[in-house]
């Protein structure tokens, strides 16, 4: 049980940290709206509260300091300047670390921790005394009494927490404790809504409290106690000071009138209507000449205040809703995945059914086919709906990246700012999760290798602060993520030199610019002269590329010397289903993703032109495109030596065109992607597998890797070798 509560806390923390980051980013962007500062303050405070409940002292300690500084900012005692914002940003990073440590174990950098604390304390130094003094003043018995005599009020407070309040780690007891510091508190528990044990929901909140507070403090102070549970409870605060004073005024009146004093003073309900009516009338009428008007005025104001606040609260809530996400349902991911799997089976089932019906040869099947088409459309609708559940905006991911850039730039003593674009682009959750590492790596690289030192930038006529643009967008059925820096661009001669030194390319290799750029993705390539703390831990861009291709996407790089480099990652929208062209290759049925196919054509002998000993080119309307024999690339034997009949014209990310030679094309259909992870290792040329209508498994090809595996020359030898092994 405590485990699950703790899980909830960490889940909440994630959201709070996100909110905090969002707020801080807005503040960094120059938006000093007090509401935003408040939001950040509340987030930090909630984390602190929850952490306190779990005894996470380090977290509490740090959050407290952090929060205190924010309180200063909130009350305009400290000005938000660039230095402070930077400090706060670093602190928010550290807070996230502390939360992560509390959750997963491990430890944080103590030195860093202490530096940040010291940094925060700088802003607190002068205020510290006042801060410690403040609560003393509140609780001190010396101050209130004289005030109390002057104007002691009775507050009637009805406090009914919603279950969300307990989820945030708030505890009614502490609220009451805080109230009792304001004055004399009487707490009455209202348990009338408490159901029997059988119908009780553990997570629900049934209790309410009626509080009576006698205090000299103004209502605003009482309300301040409940500040952190605002929106998390039903709260009504009424003060009877008005009534009392009213009564006092009345008494004065009655004394003046003498006769009516009895019934009015006691305020008896038994008073007969005729008697009550005149009694009320003089009250309002006669109050004019007496001293009563002032309190009466006050009554109005005091009454108006809560109303106003209630009104203020509701638009605020509405505003919050607009700002935050729409009402959502938190569902275990596993449930969604189960649904996705079931939908996948449904689609496979449909194609099996379609195949069976086609095999029946039972006369007129038009009606059945129409219904089957309807079935297919419904299945597709469900599938799209389910995928939409998994889709999430890339915003949180991008926000985390801001931190990476921050850390990378401070570690390399460069100045960089990250600009996020298209944060609301929605991508499959798994894609987002698995993108985190590659993006981190690319961004670190961009700061470490891409951006120049401030002074070099200035010399080159650029702003001292480097700019990295991280953008996401939808592009014809796929998601495009771009990381663009305005650094020095790729130093091609150097890259080539290193590749030669490392034996990655032959010394006399003639490479085009884009080929040189793509050398970065080769395993074992790292341009860092010294292994910096940041990038170049032996993990190269090849890992990035593998991660991206593992998601069924591709990555490419373009660079202009002096202007910067751009990494483009193209990813499929979903990981579960895609449209594919069913082809046969070397006697096997395979699927080629439709997104990569530009055109299909049936070839004839006169379209094929030899180039050198092994190379062949296909002439398409006067253009020559290299032919890539898929069967050969996959090491499959061909049934006989007849040339493949059909060509699929594909285009890679870099714009290079190739003709994939396959035996035949059968069909174009939606296929369910079954990952081969854990089934076998990475197979060059194969992206995943799928199950066809007949229950057989078909490989889903990765055209790009087939082409890059060497479309022409290397193939025949490989095929001969596999033939030799087989025979």
């Amino acid at each position: 049980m405590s485990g699950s509560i703790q899980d909830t806390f960490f889940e909440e923390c994630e959201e709070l940290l996100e909110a905090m980051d969002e707020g801080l980013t807005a503040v960094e962007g120059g938006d000093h709206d007090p509401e935003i500062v408040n939001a950040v303050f509340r987030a930090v405070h909630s984390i602190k509260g929850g952490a306190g409940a779990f005894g996470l002292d380090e977290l509490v300690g740090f959050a407290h300091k952090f929060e205190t500084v924010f309180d200063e900012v909130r009350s305009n005692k400290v000005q938000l300047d660039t230095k402070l914002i930077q400090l706060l940003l670093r602190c928010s990073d550290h807070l996230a670390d502390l939360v992560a440590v509390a959750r997963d174990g491990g430890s944080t950098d103590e030195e860093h921790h202490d530096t940040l604390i010291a940094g925060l304390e700088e802003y607190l130094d002068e205020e510290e005394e006042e801060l410690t003094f403040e609560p003393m003043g509140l609780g001190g018995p010396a101050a209130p009494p004289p005030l109390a005599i002057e104007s002691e009020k009775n507050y009637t407070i009805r406090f009914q927490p919603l279950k969300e309040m307990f989820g945030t780690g708030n505890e009614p007891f502490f609220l009451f404790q805080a109230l009792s510091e304001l004055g004399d508190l009487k707490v009455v528990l209202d348990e009338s809504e408490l159901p029997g044990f059988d119908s009780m929901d553990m997570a629900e909140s049934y209790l309410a409290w009626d509080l009576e507070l006698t205090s000299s403090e103004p209502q605003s102070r009482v309300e301040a106690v409940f500040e952190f549970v605002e929106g998390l409870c039903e709260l009504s605060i009424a003060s009877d000071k008005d009534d009392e004073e009213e009564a006092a005024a009345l008494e004065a009146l009655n004394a003046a009138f003498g006769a009516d004093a009895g019934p009015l003073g006691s305020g008896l309900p038994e008073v007969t209507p005729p008697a009550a009516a005149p009694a009320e009338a003089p009250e309002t009428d006669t109050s004019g000449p007496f001293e009563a008007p002032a309190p009466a005025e006050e009554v109005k104001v005091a009454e108006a205040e809560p109303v106003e606040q209630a009104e203020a609260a509701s638009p605020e809530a509405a505003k919050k809703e607009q700002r935050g996400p729409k009402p959502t349902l938190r569902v275990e991911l596993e449930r969604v995945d189960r649904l996705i799997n079931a939908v996948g089976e449904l689609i496979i089932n449909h194609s099996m059914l379609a195949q069976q019906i086609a095999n029946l040869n039972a006369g007129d099947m038009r009606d059945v086919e129409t219904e089957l088409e309807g079935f297919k459309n419904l299945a597709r609708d469900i599938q799209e709906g389910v995928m939409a559940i998994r889709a999430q905006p890339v915003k949180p991911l991008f926000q985390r990246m801001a931190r990476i850039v921050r850390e990378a730039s401070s570690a390399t003593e460069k100045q960089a700012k990250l600009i996020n674009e298209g944060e609301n682009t929605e991508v499959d959750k798994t894609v987002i999760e698995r993108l985190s590492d590659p993006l981190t790596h690319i961004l670190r690289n961009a700061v470490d290798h891409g951006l120049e030192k401030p002074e070099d930038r200035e010399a080159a006529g650029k702003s001292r602060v480097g700019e990295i643009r991280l953008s996401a967008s939808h592009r014809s059925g796929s998601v495009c993520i771009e990381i663009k820096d305005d650094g020095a661009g790729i130093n091609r001669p150097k890259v080539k030199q290193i590749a030669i030194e490392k034996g990655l390319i032959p010394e006399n290799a003639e490479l085009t610019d884009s080929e040189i750029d793509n050398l970065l993705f080769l395993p074992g390539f790292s341009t860092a002269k010294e292994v910096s703390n940041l990038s170049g831990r032996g993990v190269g861009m090849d890992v990035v590329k593998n991660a991206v291709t593992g998601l069924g996407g591709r990555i490419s790089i373009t660079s202009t010397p002096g202007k910067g480099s751009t990494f483009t990652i193209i990813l499929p929208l979903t990981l579960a289903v895609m449209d594919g062209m069913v082809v046969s290759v070397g006697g096997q049925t395979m699927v080629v993703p439709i997104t990569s196919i530009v055109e299909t054509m049936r070839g004839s002998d006169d379209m094929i032109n030899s180039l050198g000993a092994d190379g062949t080119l296909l002439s398409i309307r006067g253009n020559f495109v290299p032919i890539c024999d898929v069967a050969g690339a996959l090491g499959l034997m061909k049934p006989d030596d007849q040339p493949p009949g059909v060509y699929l014209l594909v285009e890679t990310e870099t714009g290079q065109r190739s003709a994939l030679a396959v035996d035949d094309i059968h069909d174009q259909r939606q296929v369910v992607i079954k990952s081969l992870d854990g089934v076998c290792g990475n197979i060059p040329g194969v992206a995943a597998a799928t199950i066809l209508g007949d229950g057989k498994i078909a490989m889903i090809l990765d055209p790009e890797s087939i082409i890059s595996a060497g479309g022409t020359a290397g193939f025949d030898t490989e095929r001969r070798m596999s033939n030799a092994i087989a025979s």
Partner: protein
Amino acid sequence: MQSQAEVNMPDQEVKHALQSEFVSFTVAGQAFCLKITQIREIRRWSPVTILPHAPADVLGVMNLRGAVIPIYDLSARFGLQQTEASERNVVIVVAVHGKPVGLLAESVSEIISINPEEIQETPQVDSRSTMEYIQGIISHDDTMVRIINLDAVISAPEQVI
């Protein structure tokens, strides 16, 4: 009478508890076995989908109720000749690290119950790969039955792929 039964009963129970059941099958003419608890199901062989660039002992992948599972040729794995898979052969589906894997065997023979003390250590022989894959041997009806070390068979060569 009653007391005797009380004394005897636990003895028998202990004996049963210690006994384990093995499924024996033939691979390339040799008898092998796996603990019955390791086996999920036994299926008739049906043609598999070939994995490109796969080593000779990986036959391909099969559709097991919507899951893609790899099929290994045990014979080739043990360094014996490759099995010419046919309808008569069987695929033994086992779970390794929670993932289903199919193993091609010639045929399944029987279920044998043995006591742990009947399991003999594998005698030292020259073939190193065999040594890795065999956990121990049992003598059953005058034939030698080899107990397969499943973890060694499946995990070790996977790194090579």
